[in-house]
Each structure stands twice: as structure tokens, then as C-alpha cells.
């Protein structure tokens, strides 16, 4: 960050007031990280919160703030699906069409919505209210089929419920997600939160839906609990000291079941990056 105000020589087309507000926010973002460049992803969310997409001005702004070239910023912005390359609707309506949701009804929901709104994937309705998207797995598979509106959860949807929600959004009504804030906010407001500027709505909504609590419900019903603490009582040996060989908790009495048991630390499929999915720790 140079001492000279960016506005004095900014190549962006933002007016002075917008630029000043953006610059103040950008400084707060950069302050969260040891290296300013780590602020680029939140800063791209920030410019979306002003422009409704990652505009040319937005790219130039990020580049100026972080002393990068516009090409370097564009390379990042085009890598991630949440950064929109043309003006987004007030609401992103995303239907999960990854395998499980698609099979459970996501395909039918998407097709019905697409027909109803007369738009395809990543297209926006003429009134600018809704951008329809196919989205990938959003980590709510126990609520399939799932729809996201501005990245809030709408669980267990049907083609009918999804079109009703779309109609209410277009009519400007307040619409509440199944698990989320009391009402869905706009795409720009969503983007501002994702830039790390809270809107104070964390206490709205539920802690969990039914499926999240299903195992716990059964455990309560059956009286099942995790074992009691085995931490040593005061004055005794702390529990993290390995048990004596031959006692109940000693690994020495375990029978080897894999090659690794014989040779601890031997590489196997569980080594990071070796033969498992991308989420690899």
C-alpha cells in the first residue's frame, strides 16, 4: 500500500466515493493476512458486492491494491466458479445436479426451473432477478435434493417447491432458507459477507435440521452414549502416558491386521496424495 491515495491514479472507473469505500475495505481485508496477496479471494468477493460480478473495474481495483497485473488477477478470478463474469441476478438459484442429488430429483428440478424461468445454466432472467445454475455437491447430501439460493440451504426440494421459491423471489417476497438466516439476502450482500464483513445474522436460523440430528436422536432414545472419561483422577498418572504393556489399553496386545501394523509408518494408500480423493488429510 502506497502513501499516495490510489484514487489519484486509479485506472478504474469507480467514482471517488465508491473507490474510497472499496479502498477502506480492501485495507481491512489485507490486514487479516501476513501476506497481502492472500486477500485476493476476499477482495474479489468484495468487488462483486459492489458491481454484482467481477467487472473490469473490479479486476483493476484488485490489481492496484495488491500491486499485481490485471492479467494475474483475471487468472485467479476465472479459476473459481463463484466469481461471475457477467452481471449476476439478484439471486443465484443453484440446483445440485451432482450424482446423488440428480438421481434423487435434482435433474427434474433443474429442468422444471429452466423451463419455468426460460433460462439455462448460468443465464439470468430478463428481469435480472434470478441467475440459474447447476451446482456441484454442496455438502448437504442427507437433505437431497438440495437447492441453494445465494448459497443458503433449501433442503429436500421438489420441482413444485423450487418453482414456488423462484416465483416468490421474483415477486420480491422474503424467502427463508431451510437452514440459514431468517431470509435470503441479495447476491451483493452475500458477496460482502463472503469478503469477511459480517452482517450480524449468525444467530438467525436453526442449529441443525432433522437429518443432521438423526443419529443423535436415536442415541438419546436408546440411551447410547460415548464412553465416560478415562482421564486419570487427580494425583494419578496422566492418561496420555502410554499404558503398560499387557494392560487392557496396550496396543501390544493387538493383533496385526495390515502390513502397516508390522511396519508402522510404512507408506500406504492413506499417505497424503496417494490414492485417495482430493480432500486428503
Amino acid at each position, binding site marked *: 500500500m502506497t502513501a499516495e491515495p490510489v484514487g489519484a491514479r486509479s485506472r478504474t472507473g469507480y467514482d471517488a466515493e465508491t473507490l474510497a469505500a472499496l479502498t477502506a475495505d480492501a485495507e481491512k481485508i489485507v490486514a487479516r493476512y*501476513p501476506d497481502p496477496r*492472500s486477500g*485476493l479471494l476476499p477482495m474479489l468477493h468484495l468487488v462483486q458486492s459492489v458491481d454484482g460480478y467481477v467487472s473490469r473495474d473490479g479486476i483493476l481495483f484488485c490489481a492496484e491494491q495488491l500491486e499485481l497485473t490485471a492479467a494475474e488477477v483475471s487468472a*485467479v478470478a476465472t*479459476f*473459481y*466458479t*463463484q466469481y461471475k463474469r457477467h452481471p449476476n441476478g439478484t439471486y443465484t438459484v443453484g440446483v445440485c445436479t*451432482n*450424482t*446423488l442429488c440428480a*438421481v*434423487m*430429483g435434482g435433474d*427434474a428440478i*433443474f*429442468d*422444471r426451473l429452466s423451463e419455468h424461468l426460460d433460462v439455462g445454466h448460468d443465464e439470468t432472467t430478463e428481469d435480472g432477478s434470478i441467475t440459474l445454475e447447476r*451446482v*456441484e455437491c*454442496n*455438502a*448437504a*447430501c442427507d437433505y*437431497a435434493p438440495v437447492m441453494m439460493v445465494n*448459497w443458503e440451504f433449501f433442503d429436500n426440494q*421438489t420441482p413444485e417447491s423450487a418453482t414456488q421459491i423462484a416465483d416468490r423471489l421474483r415477486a420480491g417476497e422474503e424467502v427463508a432458507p431451510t437452514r440459514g438466516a431468517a431470509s435470503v439476502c441479495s447476491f451483493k450482500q452475500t458477496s460482502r*459477507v*463472503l469478503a469477511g464483513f459480517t*452482517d450480524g445474522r*449468525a*444467530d438467525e*436460523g436453526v442449529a*441443525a435440521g432433522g*437429518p*443432521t*440430528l*438423526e*443419529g*443423535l436422536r*436415536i442415541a438419546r432414545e*436408546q440411551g*447410547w*452414549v*460415548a*464412553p465416560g*472419561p478415562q*482421564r486419570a483422577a487427580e494425583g494419578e498418572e496422566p492418561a*496420555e502416558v502410554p499404558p503398560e504393556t499387557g494392560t487392557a*489399553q496396550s496396543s501390544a496386545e493387538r*493383533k496385526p491386521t495390515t502390513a502397516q501394523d508390522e511396519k508402522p509408518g510404512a507408506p500406504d*494408500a*492413506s*499417505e497424503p*496424495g496417494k490414492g*485417495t*480423493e482430493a*480432500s*486428503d*488429510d
Partner: protein
Amino acid sequence: MTDTLTPVLTDTWDAERSWTLESYLAHGGYEGLRAALAQDPADVVQAVKDSGLRGRGGAGFPTGMKWGFLPAPDGGPRYLVVNADESEPGTCKDIPLMLASPQHLIEGVAITSYAIGCHHAFIYVRGEVLHVYRRLLAAVAEAYDAGYLGTDIQGSGFDLEVTVHAGAGAYICGEETALLDSLEGKRGQPRLKPPFPAVAGLYARPTVVNNVESIASVPGIMAKGADWFASMGTEKSQGHGLFSLSGHVTRPGQFEAPLGITLRELLDLAGGVREGHELKFWTPGGSSTPIFTAEHLDVPLDYESVGAAGSMLGTRALQVFDETTCVVRAVSRWTDFYAHESCGKCTPCREGTYWLKQVLHRIEAGEGTGPDIDLLLDLCDNILGRAFCALGDGATSPITSSIQYFREEYEAHLDGRGCPFDPARSTLFDDTPQAPPALAGAGGHR
């Protein structure tokens, strides 16, 4: 002997305003941090090693050992980065955990940071879960206010800053080195390993990257003891884990149980496969783990047993599909996903997933011919083990395993015959077609 289900992480989720610090403290929260701060950091690492905790994000690498790989302190910064980019298809455990009880994760972050000598930790959460991000931001703010984060935590002299960072939509960022590049403000593409993050991670400094559930399991180990944790589970797969049942199940959801429980036991709890239908195939740990069938119902869901049966425990994402589901359609859609999410860095994955998608689409559309099935296997053979990171390997798993178990179903699609299944029959809400057949299915399915 422990009970069938063992609520530990889930135990507070039904409490009033369970996401707040007040609720968490009322249920024994931060006891683990108190216990940890009274010990030498090295003893905390040892306790986690003794507990047998293995990474809950998919690969199952021993968590304490991962911490132990950090080089000796050199006076420079060391980082903890929590992988909260839960995106593996079928995986839906970390997101509800952070929505219902974010303090559980924050406490784990504080303990882990203390153990490894980290003073600035990061939680990288995927950007597509707005309310989870709100809850995490609020939880961190509450923890600062109460002195569980910040300077001189609980009078211990230990300082810790925590930054919650939202991603922007990219499955590959669940791969730990891609996540680090993304957190540095770059395109999320994996790095060559070695050096592993323990040696050169975030900003090329020693870094531990752990999954949300792994870190959230640490407070319990500190509060109740390593032996307590190890008393659950099997001989080599110890402790509790979240099992996520989804799909054609009567009552899907999260089931927290000792590792080693079977799908048969879990299905019994969940009311079985939906009424009038039977199990056809399932994933033990997300779409990147080879599929199983009804013959695997009694495989203990621990790292070793699932591995011995030809798949991987992964993230315990049990996606259940009944006999109405076309396996070719399911696999084709997963392949669309891998092709879409391939970061483009390496040729086997970038080109391979593209061609897998083309071949599967034509098989699905009835335009495939005899050699196409072997062509798929050949393509997989050229990706597996040759891709830069595990995404490419994962892309081959559903294909090779489904051909192994359902080759005849692939063959039934060939030579103009097309898909013999009615997609409307597998939907949750109706058994009658919702759309003309030509429109049903987004992946060219007819």
C-alpha cells in the same frame, strides 16, 4: 464395549442455540484447551499420537504424526490451516458440524496451534455455505472476547490469531497444497510433493493442514484422555467418526459411531433402504472411493477392512442407491464433476477426464459400441497413478469399480439401445415422469 452410536462431536447439536459460546461452555467446552495449556506442547502432540486419531478428511494419515513432521522451531512462523473445503460428493459432515457447533472446531484450533507452536491459524471454508461462514466468523469473535483466542490465552502466555477465509468454488482446493496456493491468493492448483506442507507450506513455512473433524476431535482427546478416544473403534482405526448416510435411505443423516460399524448396522438405524426397494450400490467414502454393492454390507467401516475389500474409507460418505438407479448415469455424472473440477495443471487428469466424459456420454445416449467399455478402462489406466494429485485417481474409482460389478449394465446401453432405466423412478418425490424423456437428465441422459 461401547454403544452402537457414540455422540461426542454431535452431542451438543440438539442444545438450545448450540452454536454459541455460552451453550458450548455449558456443555463442558474448552475443558480440553485448559488441560492442554497446563501441559508441555510436546505432550499434547504425544497424546494425539497415542489416541490413534487419523485424518478424518479422507486419507486417514495419523494426525499426531503429521504434527510431528514439523521441523524444529527456527524462530519463524508456523501455521495451522484447517481444511473446511468440504466438497467431495457425498460428504456432508463438516458443514453441519460448523453450523451447529463451530466452537468445537475453534477449541481444536487453539489446542492444535499450541501443540505445534502456531500463532496464526487459518480456517479455509468453501465459499458456497454462507451461513456456515457467518457462524464461524461469529464463533471466532466470541472466542476472542472470552479470551480463548488472542493474546495471553487464559493467562497462559500463549498468543493465537485466527482468520476465517472463504473460498470461491473449486473442489480441487480440498487438496491440501492446492488449498495453500488458494489461500495465498492464487489459482488453486496442487504443488509438487515433496516438500510436504510440514516443511514448506503456507508462505513456504512449516504448516499443518488438517480436516475439520480431525481438529474438532482433539478437544475430547485432551479433556478425556488418549485412552478414552482409543477405547472406541477397532484395533487400528480408533475413535469416533461421523458417518453420513444419504440417498435412497428411509431416514438419512449423520450417525456418529466408533470406526468399524457396518453399513448393515447403520441402515438398520436409518430405517433401511427406502420402502419397496433394495440396495444396488453405495460409496463407502465419497465418489472418489470405489463403489460397493450389497455383498459388502458387513464390511467393517474402518481404514483396513474397507481397504482390504477394494475401496477406501475416505470421508465415510455413504451414498446409497437402490435398484431404480442406472449405474452408468451415476458414474457419468460423477465423471462430469471430475472433468469440471480438474484444475488443468497435469495432462493425464485434464485430458483424461475430458475423454472419459465423452465416452460415458455416448454410452449413456446409446451411441456407444463394444470397444468403449475397454476404452474407458484403458483411459483410467492412463490416469491412475499418473496424475499430479489424487483428483485424477479419484476420477477413475467409480468407473473401474462400476465396470467390475455392473459390466452387463454398461453393455445393455450399447449399440443404439440407450438407457433402460426411467430416471423419474429414482427421484425422492415421485414415481411418475416429471419431464418428457428428452429433457430428463442433465448429462445427455435419455
